């Protein structure tokens, strides 16, 4: 026989204490009686007063010691080493996303889920194993497979709810990989403790995931900011326009005030009313004297407070320096000049990396030296970008991605191309315009360089005559402007890493978190990019890099998270769904109950013994 908790034998020290209690002489009340004749029968039991004579044949004491021994024995958790049954594996996924901060459960959904998960830890049978995964913006393995309940409890206690969205797919994938190859007899299970506010899980449709969904959450009383952007006011270049979307996910119409702050200074308060289930777009116009942070704040008290505020860094627009390398293309030049705030320079060849320009337009000219910055390449081939360019005659444009920012308001109806270079779309790029044979335009980011590649010479097409051409060029100027892409980088979703290109080697940096905590960073001198991943809390972060300070904002801005309505079922694809379980914990170990019962009996027996004297 072995013992799981041999340290519990230390409780055996209580046995001498019990004996000592019996040896203690009880304080007696002196009473004068007429005669002790009638008391003879009662005297006999307690007559012996010599210390060890007392203990002789004291059944009460023997019973107590026996009971105590059994309790100590139970606490030591004895076991026989026998051929073990296959252990069951339970993978617990604890949703640590922002929606779990909702306070419709007391004290919060996350705490409720944690309590439920702890109950399941308690119910773990002897050799069953459990894995604890925390699914927030990133999936963290809080505890690998273990039978140790103390470790599992510690792991659950260490879980922290983030301000980020749920990324359940990686967590489920990890859980699936853990249970996939197990013997089905062992009946592995994945227990998801969540409110069900998760995006699509289509890829698990046919996986027959042994998923048990434990739903938390009751109400859906929430207003949230789901989108935020800042741009120049198209009608007045001196002003900035702040766009915000406020969604009402509750079942009633809600009234609240929406505040706009610039660097914590209140600029405007606007009362808004949003009907149930509707989204209200709001535009603020504000003068901005210098770079700053706009904050939009909802004053309403709802169940989820994390989405009631969002911030965005607003940098004042600077002129875009563009170098056009062309043998002469007036239409392109005019289109470039028509884009706002552009300083255009033109040349016929490029012999240096064009470091002084924001981006370079290569119009049917293969440069001597390829630029290092962003490029709009028209009818040129760079083998570093893709291999195997071929020529096609009169390709018909069959599809274009109007959702891409480059093709915003730019359709390719009635555009004909005489001939075009074409190549298989490289992995770093996305196809924008397609002919049946191959893509004609694609765009993407190769390293830190943004590239738009147009396979055909625009002058060998009627595109420049279409309205979509200047729009596309304006969009391209916007997209290729490093300042714009940088300001895009300054708005990070909770849990996503913040990236910053390093222009010179640096070894240390410091990030000040929203709470004011300074976090020093050590950098590799050879690194060309700084990646900061600790963005679980929303707010304004300040990165100090030498003498420069970069401000970036972390926000939730997630429709799925803000919609905190608890889901009865989780949809896995079109036809599969997992209904919230009502199953309670099972396989409760009995030793605790038995030991408690023993202790209780001991107490009752002691109480009864003393009751006789009152």
């Amino acid at each position, binding site marked *: 026989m072995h013992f799981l908790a041999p340290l519990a034998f230390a409780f055996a020290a209580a046995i001498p204490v019990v004996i000592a209690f019996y040896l203690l002489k*009880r*304080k*007696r*009340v*002196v*009473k*004068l*009686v*007429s*005669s*002790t*004749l*009638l*008391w003879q*029968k*009662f*005297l006999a*039991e*307690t*007559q012996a*007063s010599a210390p060890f004579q007392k203990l002789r044949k004291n059944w009460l004491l023997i019973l107590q010691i026996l009971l105590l021994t059994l309790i100590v024995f139970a606490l030591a958790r004895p076991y026989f080493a026998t051929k073990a049954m296959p252990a069951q594996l339970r993978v617990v996924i604890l949703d640590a996303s922002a929606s779990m901060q909702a306070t419709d459960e007391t004290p919060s959904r996350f705490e409720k889920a944690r309590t439920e998960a702890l109950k399941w830890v308690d119910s773990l049978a002897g050799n069953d194993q459990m894995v604890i995964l925390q699914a927030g913006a990133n999936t963290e393995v809080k505890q690998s497979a273990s039978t140790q309940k103390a470790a599992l409890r510690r792991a659950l206690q260490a879980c922290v709810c983030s301000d980020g969205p749920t990324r359940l797919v990686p967590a489920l994938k990890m859980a699936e990989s853990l249970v996939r190859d197990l013997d089905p007899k062992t009946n592995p299970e994945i227990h998801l403790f969540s409110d069900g506010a998760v995006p699509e899980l289509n890829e698990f449709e046919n996986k027959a995931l042994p998923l048990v969904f434990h739903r938390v959450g009751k109400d859906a009383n929430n207003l949230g900011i789901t989108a935020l952007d800042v741009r120049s006011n198209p009608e007045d270049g001196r002003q900035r326009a702040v766009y915000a979307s406020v969604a009402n996910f509750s079942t009633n119409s809600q009234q609240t005030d929406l505040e706009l702050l610039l660097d914590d200074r209140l600029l405007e308060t606007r009362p808004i009313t949003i009907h149930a289930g509707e989204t209200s777009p709001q535009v603020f116009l504000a003068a901005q004297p210098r770079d700053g942070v706009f904050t939009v704040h909802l004053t309403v008290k709802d169940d989820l407070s994390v989405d009631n505020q969002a911030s965005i860094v607003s940098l004042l627009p600077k002129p875009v320096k563009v170098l056009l390398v062309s043998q002469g293309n007036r239409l392109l030049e005019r289109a470039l000049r028509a884009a706002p705030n552009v300083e255009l320079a033109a040349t016929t060849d490029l012999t240096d990396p064009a470091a002084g320009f924001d981006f370079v337009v290569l119009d049917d000219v293969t440069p001597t030296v390829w630029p290092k910055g962003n490029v709009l390449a028209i009818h040129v081939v760079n083998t570093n970008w893709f291999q195997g360019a071929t020529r096609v005659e009169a390709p018909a444009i069959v599809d274009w991605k109007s959702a891409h920012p480059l093709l915003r308001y730019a359709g390719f109806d009635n555009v004909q191309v005489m001939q075009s270079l074409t190549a298989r779309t490289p992995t770093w790029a996305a196809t924008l315009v397609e002919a049946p044979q191959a893509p004609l335009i694609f765009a993407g980011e190769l390293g830190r360089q943004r590239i738009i590649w147009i396979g055909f010479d625009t002058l060998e097409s009627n595109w420049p005559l279409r309205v979509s051409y200047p729009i596309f060029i304006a969009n391209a100027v916007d997209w290729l402007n490093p300042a714009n892409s940088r300001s895009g980088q300054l708005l990070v979703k909770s849990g996503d890493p913040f990236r910053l290109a390093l222009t010179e080697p640096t070894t240390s940096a410091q990030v000040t978190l929203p709470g004011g905590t300074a976090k020093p960073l050590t950098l590799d001198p050879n690194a060309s990019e700084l990646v900061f991943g600790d963005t679980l809390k929303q707010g304004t972060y300040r990165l100090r890099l030498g003498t420069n300070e970069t401000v970036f904002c972390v926000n939730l801005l997630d429709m799925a998270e803000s919609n905190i309505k608890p889901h009865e079922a989780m949809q896995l694809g079109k036809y599969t769904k997992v209904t919230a379980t009502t199953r309670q914990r099972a396989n409760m170990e009995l030793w605790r109950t038995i030991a408690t019962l023993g202790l209780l009996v001991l107490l009752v027996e002691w109480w009864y013994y003393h*009751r*006789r*004297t*009152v």
Partner: protein
Amino acid sequence: MPDALLTPELLRRLEQFQLLATRRAKSSSKGERRSRARGQSVEFADYRTYVHGDDFRYLDWNLYGRLERLFLKLYEEERELPVRIFLDASQSMTFGEPPKFHFARQVAAAIGYVALSGFDRVSVIPFPDVANGLETDQATRTMEMAARGALRSVRGKKSAIQFFRNLGSLTASGAANLNEALRRGALEARQAGVAVVLSDFLDPAGYESGLTALVGRGFQVDLVQILAPDEVSPTTFGDLRLIDSETGGQQEVTFGRYRMKAYQRTVQNFLQRLREFCKSRGINFFSTSSNTDLQELLLKQLRQAEVWG
């Protein structure tokens, strides 16, 4: 102190009673009880032939007329009935509320008064002796001795007040030896009569030999056991160190309410043993508590048991 012991009302009612003796009086003194002795009374007993020297006044002349022989008429001699009251005056009798000893004195007073009213001789024998146990000053002891002496033999209703006074001045103390007291009482009695024993009978040495000696001496024994209410149903619980009032012996006991029944069973067993002992020897047995209504005991229980009538 008749007032302290019995009320005038009770005394008046007691006057109606007379002690009922199942045996003939054997006293040598005249009294109002029928005896086996022949003497002068109005109650004809027998005839005997005349012998020289007999008093002519008792000759039956009618019989002489018919038979011409001289016969002398014999009459029953009426003698007194000696009533001995054994009064337990040990320390244990001082317990109870009201004290058992006070109750015992009241019963003794009542029995004594009935006896005195019936021209019987009353002896109150308190035990233990004063010398044995009294721990008071000399004057009190002398008074106690005097009272006890006066109570040794009382006769006549006129002595009743003094009888009560002496009874009232008795005190209880010391350790009783019931057997010894009764045996000595039986030996000391010149004539048997009625013996009334008033005690709690809580004597570790027992009561059997003493009562047997009384019965053996020819006494008609009436036994009144007086217990305190607290002895029947104790009201003190917990871990106790009990001190015996008479022996001074200490005993430790753990007593709780749940053991009350067991205790009462012990008391009942004790009473049952005593009752059976009495029944087997023709002794009238009464068990009473010191808080019992005295009239109830005297006017009902003792009358029903034909102690008096």
